[in-house]
């Protein structure tokens, strides 16, 4: 279970890094911090959910293994970002560059969600054939998955476009 230890320390490091980035003199705006938190919480939530569901499936089988998905609640903690991180200082908190970055990130998120839903619809058709059927319980799962992918890709695209962190420029 060394993997879990690495994940725990990884979360602690990234969260501390985000919270104290300003003290270290790096410029990171509120949107970046919120995006960073979302990437961490979604990654952790999904990883733990997959691990727990797999473990429960081996030990207890279905449908009890679905309880492992409860770890997805961790991903919901990312929604606390706007409450945790204070508003940026200065009279201007959002300008043309921020709007361009957000628009591109939204486009990337939409594309990812569209591909995910498309794949989720087409895969059973090709695997099971035209006469096959799947349980309707997969529909809320697809919906939830699309939501998670949208938030994850949007946040990751924001971080990538800002360059993860903009180094403090010389004054």
């Amino acid at each position, binding site marked *: 279970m060394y993997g879990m230890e690495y994940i725990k320390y990884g979360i602690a490091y990234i969260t501390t890094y985000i919270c104290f980035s300003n003290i270290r003199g790096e410029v990171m705006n509120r949107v970046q911090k919120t995006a960073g938190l979302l990437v961490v919480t979604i990654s952790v939530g999904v990883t733990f959910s997959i691990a727990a569901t797999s473990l429960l499936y081996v030990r207890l089988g279905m449908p009890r293994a679905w309880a492992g998905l409860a770890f997805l609640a961790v991903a919901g903690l990312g929604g606390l970002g706007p409450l945790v991180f204070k508003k940026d200082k200065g009279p*201007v908190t959002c300008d043309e*560059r921020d709007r361009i970055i957000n628009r591109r990130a939204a486009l990337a998120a939409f594309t990812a969600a569209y591909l995910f839903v498309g794949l989720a619809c087409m895969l059973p058709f090709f695997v099971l054939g035209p006469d096959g059927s799947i349980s309707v319980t997969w529909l809320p799962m697809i919906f939830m998955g699309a939501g998670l992918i949208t938030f994850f890709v949007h946040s990751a695209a924001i971080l990538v476009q800002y360059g993860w962190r903009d180094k403090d420029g010389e004054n």
Partner: protein
Amino acid sequence: MGKTELTNQIRRLRFENGEMTQQQLADKVAVTRQTIIAIESGKYAPSLPLAFRIARAFDVPIEQVFQYEDK
């Protein structure tokens, strides 16, 4: 079409204008300090209106602030 690059003299102009800080310039042209940092380092090419606002903040023509060169 050859590769082009937008260079700028913002850092030099800031120092020539009473050692203006990035935050002061950002406030003058109504953007965030992050954007000024990105423009100065050449990571972001500003819109034409913003480029004009920056030039006006230094009271110089726009071509003294930004240069467009074929690479």
